[in-house]
């Protein structure tokens, strides 16, 4: 099992103004899971894109089973047996599962026409390799599947290519715990079948659970290599260049928790029932639950995106149901969406414009863009500084920043509004440990300043470590509540137990 399937030697890559990779060497063997980790912007995705032919390296060589290869297009690498599952899905929501699986290489029958029957049958076969795969109908339109199942389809697609190398770039970002377990089982199975797996993640737990070897990138260089899965602290040290002792911020002290800022009574709509919820100033409330339990729906209701149709919200003593995000923001609620690119960022605009977006939205249309009621340019720059955003300039388009830095810019946006309640949806998705710790401390700081924080996360340790109180949801209702010190088992049990037992 020492045959190196992939060898990358001396890879260097520069983008205008950034050296993304310098002299990186990296290899993967058949039947192993090689974890690739590093801070945001360390160069992980860039390395993968060079491997798969999206980018061309400035220097260095890539070898596949000992032979030097020059992929100039991802298809070439795919044909050579390297499948990449990207951070963003590449599925077609309007097409069926089978059509997606065989996209670009549909089986042909008579007259060169597509053999739909065979395509369906082959899809069935591939899906049957996975536990939940058996439940997916090959004719189902992908857009109608939930995200975890879509993720499954993505992986099935890679498998159906009979790839010998499978790269997963943060595959669990959109999954909750149970779904993650399913994914891990799949990864195990792929490893047994002799596949070489490159696994990129920011979650230490996954490294411990899966990795045979670990490569740590820092600032575009290899900072460390480990055989086996080392102690998380060692990885963190290599990534960040120092230890992080206070990963989670300390919990709120009793005297820090104040009056209720947000109260919901009897809230309900198409996806939610009987929501009774209180968030106090100074506390962080975690929302847990399995996929589809209604956490995001609850956030959307609080934020006025999918308003409550029943019940009422009391915010700082004033009653209202918000009909739009704008109304919610005006009343003092802020929300960090879970999908940065499509819901959080205006990508072609500058970092500063992204930060100023909400302050500007709440100023007169016709007044100066440099000074608004909530913040002026100077204050936004201060907040961006405080977030330690890595950018060549705040005038730079935000799309050139790494995911974590983009997330920080959105946080800065909300900080400028001094919200009473701030809802974080998957706040650390795709964010490195250092930044994660930063976000946890930031949430705590905000709470100390008197805000109520609601955090939705699919990362159980994160909920347990960061929240003062944990609410568990199931089928659109809040079914359980835990204080600090709840175990993962407690929460999982509450999230998956039968309705009667939980109620």
């Amino acid at each position, binding site marked *: 099992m020492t045959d190196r399937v992939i060898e990358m030697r001396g890879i260097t890559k520069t983008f205008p103004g950034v050296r993304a990779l310098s002299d990186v060497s990296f290899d993967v063997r058949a039947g192993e899971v090689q974890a690739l980790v590093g801070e945001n912007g360390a160069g992980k995705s860039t390395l993968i894109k060079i491997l798969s032919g999206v980018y061309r390296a400035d220097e260095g060589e890539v070898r596949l089973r000992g032979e030097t290869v020059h992929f100039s297009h991802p298809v070439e690498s795919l044909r050579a047996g390297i499948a990449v599952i990207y951070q963003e899905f590449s599925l077609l929501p309007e097409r069926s599962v089978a059509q997606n699986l065989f996209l670009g290489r549909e089986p042909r029958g008579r007259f060169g026409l597509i053999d739909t029957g065979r395509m369906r049958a082959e899809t069935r076969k591939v899906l049957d390799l996975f536990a939940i795969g058996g439940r997916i109908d090959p004719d189902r339109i992908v857009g109608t599947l939930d995200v975890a199942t879509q993720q499954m389809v993505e992986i099935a697609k890679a498998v159906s290519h009979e790839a010998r190398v499978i790269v997963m770039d943060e595959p669990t970002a959109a999954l909750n715990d149970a779904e993650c377990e399913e994914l891990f089982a799949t990864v195990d199975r792929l490893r047994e079948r002799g596949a070489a797996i490159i696994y990129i993640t920011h979650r230490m737990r996954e490294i411990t659970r899966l990795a045979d070897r670990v490569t740590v990138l820092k600032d575009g260089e290899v900072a460390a290599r480990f055989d086996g899965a080392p102690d998380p602290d060692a990885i963190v040290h290599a990534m960040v260049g120092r230890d992080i002792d206070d990963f989670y911020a300390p919990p709120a002290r009793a005297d820090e928790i104040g009056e209720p800022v947000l109260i919901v009574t009897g809230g309900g709509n198409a996806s939610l029932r009987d929501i009774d919820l209180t968030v106090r100033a100074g506390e962080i409330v975690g929302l847990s639950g399995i996929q589809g339990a209604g956490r995001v729906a609850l956030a959307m209701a609080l934020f006025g995106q999918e308003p409550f149709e029943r019940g009422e919200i009391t915010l700082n003593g004033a009653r209202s149901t918000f009909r739009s995000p704008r109304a919610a923001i005006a009343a003092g609620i802020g929300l960090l969406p879970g999908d940065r690119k499509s819901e959080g960022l205006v990508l072609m605009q500058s970092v500063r414009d992204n930060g100023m977006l909400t302050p500007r939205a709440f100023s007169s249309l016709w007044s100066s863009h440099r000074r608004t009621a909530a913040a002026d340019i100077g204050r936004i720059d201060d907040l961006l*500084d405080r977030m330690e955003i890595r950018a060549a300039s705040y005038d730079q388009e935000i799309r050139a920043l790494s995911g974590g830095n983009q997330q920080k810019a959105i946080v800065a946006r909300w900080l400028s509004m001094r919200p009473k309640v701030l809802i974080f949806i998957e706040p650390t998705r795709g964010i490195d440990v250092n930044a994660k710790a930063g976000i946890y401390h930031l949430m705590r700081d905000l709470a100390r300043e008197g805000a109520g924080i609601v955090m939705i996360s699919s990362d159980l340790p994160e909920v347990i470590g960061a929240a003062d109180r944990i609410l568990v949801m199931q089928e659109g209702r809040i079914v359980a509540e835990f204080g600090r010190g709840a175990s993962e088992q407690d929460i999982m049990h509450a999230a998956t137990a039968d309705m009667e037992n939980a109620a």
Partner: protein
Amino acid sequence: MTGSPTASRPGTGGWSLAGINPVWPLLAALVAAIVFMNPGFAEPTGYMNFLKRAAPLAILAAGQVYVITSGGFDLSQGSLITLVVVGSSMLTDNDPAATAWVIPVMLAIGLGVGAVNGAIVCFLRVPSLIATLGTMITLNGLAFLWSGGAPRGYLPDTFRFFGRELIHDVPLVRFVPVSVIVLVVVVGALAWAMHRTNLGRMVHAIGDNPVAARLAGVPVNRVRVTAFMLSGLSAAIAGILLGGFAGVSTDVGTGYELEAITAAVLGGAQLLGGRGSVPAALGGALALTAIFTLLNFLGLPQPVRQVVQGLILIAAVALAMHRRKRTGT
């Protein structure tokens, strides 16, 4: 946040030659060619006439660039011009005193049509290409319906003042057409609103990512409707200038919407939103007018002019895409 504040704050991007909008060198080259062909162009009569002729298109493009930057198209500008010209002749009914109220009414119609366009897009969720195609057809019909097919009135000289008259004895340039003053004021105001106000930044934001903008609290509909209203207003002003320049006819506006889009795109505006500049759209309009003028001076027949216009359009955008790819922005 952990750690100490960073010592140095990221700097502000400087001005660089590579960053200059290609519409300006293009315009400069065209003007140089025109002056070379016809030195009279360097005289006030030459360039003032040129600016006067370019004024309606420049104003139109400055309005259109709001809609384009916000992610849409406004195909109704041309018909709106026709409606304004025909409607003004119907309403003024040869009465010089009527101008005083007819012009505000026309500006209101421009704003109103823009509001309707915006409402169709925002509330009926019809893509603007189709929505404004619909209003384009409807407004054209309305203009004919109103006039019975042939305008029934003249435009009084008071009305035509804006598009036709010159202000004499101006130092340095001898005279300035009124329409050039209108051009400077309107384009100046639109440039200010686009590049110095919250409105402009939000127009960019909703064109870039409307979902993110909405979730950030941007009043997406209000901004979008405002963009369409400014586009409508610019068409009304262009109509007043065009009616003033040459009097009433029922097809004054025909084709202007595409020229305005062309001008905006020559100025680097990105179709489908997120990027756009009013000064550059002005540059685009001037460049387009300069192309026409140059081809005219060359005495080229109409068909050749069309071909050249088509090729320049494609080449300009292809070049912009090439640059964008190379600089990675």
